[in-house]
């Protein structure tokens, strides 16, 4: 019996744990409890709002209306400071006629350049209920405008629904359009020139990109790094399958392109734009120069209605924008036609597309609230603040979801290896997530954004690390091909002897009827 026991001892008590230990998949210990405790819907951002009114009653009235309006939104937490306008500022505000000058006067007293702050200032001589431009200041007339103030803050300045969409499970319209978050983007302007022999395009693409797009993205440098590029794609001929339609213009005709044909142009462009050589995501902007014999090209919508627009353009979410331009009738009458594109209009169109692609949503109209239209390429200050909020939340929730799904995968698939590097980046992502949510609740938006970005990038690198898959394709049948011939014949008698062994341990007679 001792022999039997020693076989069991060697094979089962020493052998099995040894086998278990040597065939174990290498995994660094991970903070699973922290990962599983992430609640993506609980994040909120604290933001500072200062209400400046002429008298205390108005300020209280305004604040109560604002608090009421933001009661049901848990994503933006307002930290409201109430104060009265100083006598000096009041007199100057009343004295200046122009609102922009008034903003400057407010800016002289208060710091309007700080991120995540906003000022609601009373200004008596106002024609509308509220007035808002590019700076972090909104004017209102009196206490009667309090409803409009609250509404405009909620729907225009803070855009709570879009911010909430950034952390939700399903993507809303804005998230479907904008690029996924990233440390930087390449913006490539491709001038598509199908007939260089028949038309000359007089455009310095490099300068146009640097001048217009450059000054736009400079303002957004707090969010991402941008690299601007331009290229020409010659002889890329796309068949629009346009129908000629007679009209009363100088040309006497126009070519109608159905909207549903346009996405095929993107496929054609993708062949040549060489976006894959960039290390960062690329935002494509394409200017298609229609040759004389195909001009002017007009886009028709799905109901066969002309799209009434100054510029023929369309946008593809998460890809980029296309402007279709062409020479005028007078240009084409020349024997060697030259088209000088209207750079200001074309670049303006590209910028309006870029705004959406980068995540700035168009402001909704609120009754009684006046919003100054954009006059330059630069985005509004409060739009950038809002974008910071959206991106912070988006990166944070995305990082959390990535880690959660990684943890879930690790539970489901036992073959995944987690080496030290992946473990380190998961740990740093978890740490950054915690830091970022603390910073968010303190209202330190720019820091929180940077922290959430590092969390996002760390989580993505951990998830995309190819070493995770090192053992994934090690098939089970090959394992059994080794185990079965060795283990089955050996373990069979050993396991069977266990029964006798147990009986023997209990002191019962073992060989009752076994042998003759």
């Amino acid at each position: 019996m001792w022999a039997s026991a020693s076989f069991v001892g060697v094979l089962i008590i020493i052998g099995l744990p040894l086998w278990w230990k040597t065939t174990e998949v290498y995994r660094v210990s991970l903070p699973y409890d922290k990962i599983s405790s992430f609640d993506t819907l609980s994040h909120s951002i604290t933001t500072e709002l200062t209400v400046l009114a002429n008298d205390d009653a108005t300020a209280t009235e305004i604040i109560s209306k604002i608090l009421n309006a933001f009661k049901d939104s848990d994503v933006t937490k307002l930290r409201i400071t109430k104060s009265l306008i100083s006598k000096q500022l009041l007199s100057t505000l009343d004295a200046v006629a122009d609102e922009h000058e008034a903003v400057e006067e407010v800016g002289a007293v208060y710091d309007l350049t700080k991120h995540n702050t906003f000022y609601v200032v009373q200004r008596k001589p106002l024609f509308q209920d509220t007035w808002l431009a590019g700076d972090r200041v909104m004017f209102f007339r009196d206490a009667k405008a309090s409803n409009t103030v609250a509404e405009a803050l909620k729907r225009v300045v803070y855009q709570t629904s879009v911010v909430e969409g950034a952390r939700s499970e399903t993507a809303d319209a804005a998230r479907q359009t904008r690029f996924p978050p990233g440390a930087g983007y390449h913006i490539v302007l491709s001038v598509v020139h199908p007939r260089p022999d028949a038309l000359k395009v007089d455009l310095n693409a490099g300068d146009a990109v640097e001048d217009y797009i450059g000054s736009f993205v400079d303002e957004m440098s707090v969010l991402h790094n941008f690299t601007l590029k331009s290229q020409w794609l010659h002889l890329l001929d796309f068949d629009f399958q346009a129908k000629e339609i007679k009209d009363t213009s100088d040309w006497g005709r126009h070519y109608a392109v159905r909207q549903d044909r346009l996405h095929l142009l993107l496929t054609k462009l993708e062949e040549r734009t060489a976006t894959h050589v960039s290390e960062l995501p690329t935002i494509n902007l394409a200017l298609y120069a229609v040759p004389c014999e195909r001009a002017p090209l007009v886009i028709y919508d799905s109901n066969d209605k002309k799209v009434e627009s100054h510029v023929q353009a369309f946008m593809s979410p998460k890809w980029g924008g296309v402007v279709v331009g062409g020479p005028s009738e007078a240009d084409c009458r020349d024997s060697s036609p030259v088209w000088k594109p209207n750079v200001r209009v074309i670049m303006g169109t590209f910028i309006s597309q870029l705004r959406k692609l980068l995540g700035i949503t168009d402001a909704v109209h609120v009754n009684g609230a006046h919003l100054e239209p954009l006059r330059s390429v630069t985005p509004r200050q409060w739009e950038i603040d809002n974008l910071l909020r959206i991106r912070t939340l988006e990166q944070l929730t995305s990082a959390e979801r990535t880690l959660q799904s990684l943890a879930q995968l690790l539970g489901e698939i036992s073959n995944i290896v987690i080496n030290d590097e992946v473990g380190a980046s998961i740990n740093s992502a978890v740490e950054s997530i915690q830091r970022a949510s603390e910073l968010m609740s303190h209202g330190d938006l720019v820091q929180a954004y940077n922290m959430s970005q590092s969390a996002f990038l760390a989580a993505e690198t951990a998830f995309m690390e190819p070493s995770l898959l090192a053992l994934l394709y090690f098939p089970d049948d090959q394992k059994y091909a080794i185990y079965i011939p060795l283990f089955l014949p050996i373990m069979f008698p050993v396991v069977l002897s266990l029964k006798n062994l147990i009986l023997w341990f209990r002191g019962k007679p073992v060989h009752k009827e076994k042998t003759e």
Partner: protein
Amino acid sequence: MDFLRRFLSYCIFFTFFLCVRCDEFREELFFKPLPSTHLYSYFQFVTLVDSEVSSFHSHLAPRSLAEVVSRFQVEELHLTLTEGQWRHHQWGYPVLDAAPGAELYAWFSPDVTDVDTQWKKLSATLSGLFCASLNFIDSFNTVTPQMALWPMGAVKSSQNVTSQLRYASLPREIVCTENLTPWKKLLPCESSRGFSALLNSRMIHNTNYHSVGVHVRKVCKSSDCLETQLEFKQTVALIYDYDIIKSNDWSFRKLFGQGLPGACPLSTDSKIYVDVTSNSTQPFTLSPPPDNIILSQRGRTDTKLAVYNIHPDGKMINIGVKHKTKSQIPVSIHPPLFFNRYVLGYGKEFGGIVTEITNNCLAPINVVVLENAPWWLPIQLSTLRVNGEAESKLVQSQYYSPGRSRQKPYHLELLIKLPPKSTTTITIDFEFVFLKWQEYPPDANHGFYIGSALISANLPTARNYTSLPITGTTFDSVINDTKLWYPIVFRTNGAMVSLPTPDFSMPYNVICLACTVVALAFGPLHNICTKELVLKPSGTSLSLTQKLLNLFKKKKD
């Protein structure tokens, strides 16, 4: 008249156009009948851009390549993908020689400190760009040539160029259409117009030899070289066999399957050169007749070139050659320098590589021979013999860097002075190495390729020499270019060895057999150890199984 007017308008249009952008694109095509029955056609597409602005804003230059060059701070880059073997002794010399398979070498800017990492990243990026297996380039197949390669472009004279150079070749790489398509996309006219429209993959992969190349270098903008330009040169070299096209009268339609649909509208200059020197011995006519015929004297070699200027008018052009007499096989005269390389030995233990270099000139020639053996083929310097001698006077200088298993290849460079009218034989022995079972390539019994050796020479004569001078960008720089020396880098033929290859199913068989034996032995052993014999008193009641067993026993009896 209409044509002339249109042509003038193009000229005006392009001169204006180019001054604004200051980048130029030229396309050239060169034909040369080669001895015995072959025809050499060489396409060259050159884009010149100002190096300051090129990487971010490109007009005619390929943005993808410009971006790769600027991102990895590459000063000069040469990539060739070749199928087939150039026969130097028979065909003479190509414009640019290329090793069979894939070959990549690059000089990085002096600012790059970690050249090896940049090199790895560069090869991985180019692998994606050209759909080639360049990602297999690693430290174990990369060498830094000390003497054999020098930059073709403009470099500062004070710069240490050798330490920034990396060279690798993948002789096993198979070149096909998937490499040609991305290559065509780098051209401003892509393949829709211009000479690149002739590159019909169905026809060009039907040749004896084809080589696709991308070369980026810096060239001087003016003679004082204060400003440099970036030159992107894309080349295709094809060798057609008259036996394949079934006659020695060739035409575009026979060679490429179609005519030439005019020049690329973006090119400043589109020219076709046909070497008509052999017209005196083998009379033929060109149709349509060339625009002019140039007599070029290079050294003491006379070359006659027929030149066609092609205009971007979209007219189909079909240039062809008709021989007056039936085909005669011309006598091939050996070029000034030719070479051969082969593997020695039998069995699976030792072997040797022999490189024979023949100097056919009346003057001695200095050559640098670079032998680059992979780590699994250790070459031993002690076995190096030049013409059978261990200490040869011919060897002027020598560089040897021993390899390291799985990390570094063996690298030997010899500067040899070849005596006139002689053949020099360089022999070096190697031993075969057992690889780990995962290191064998698929189909390991096919054999293992050894990369070409590089032979870099300064030829004293321009006979058979077709390369452009180092300062030249376009083909017209060849005309009357007499120099003291004609530098050229050759690639010898590759070789193949068969390494000891195991039976790959053996480990599994061994496991199964060993396990069965262990299992068979274990059963009785376990039984003997654990069972004990116990005496059983007779007359005890029998269990049911015992009764059944007894029943069988009785029947047997």
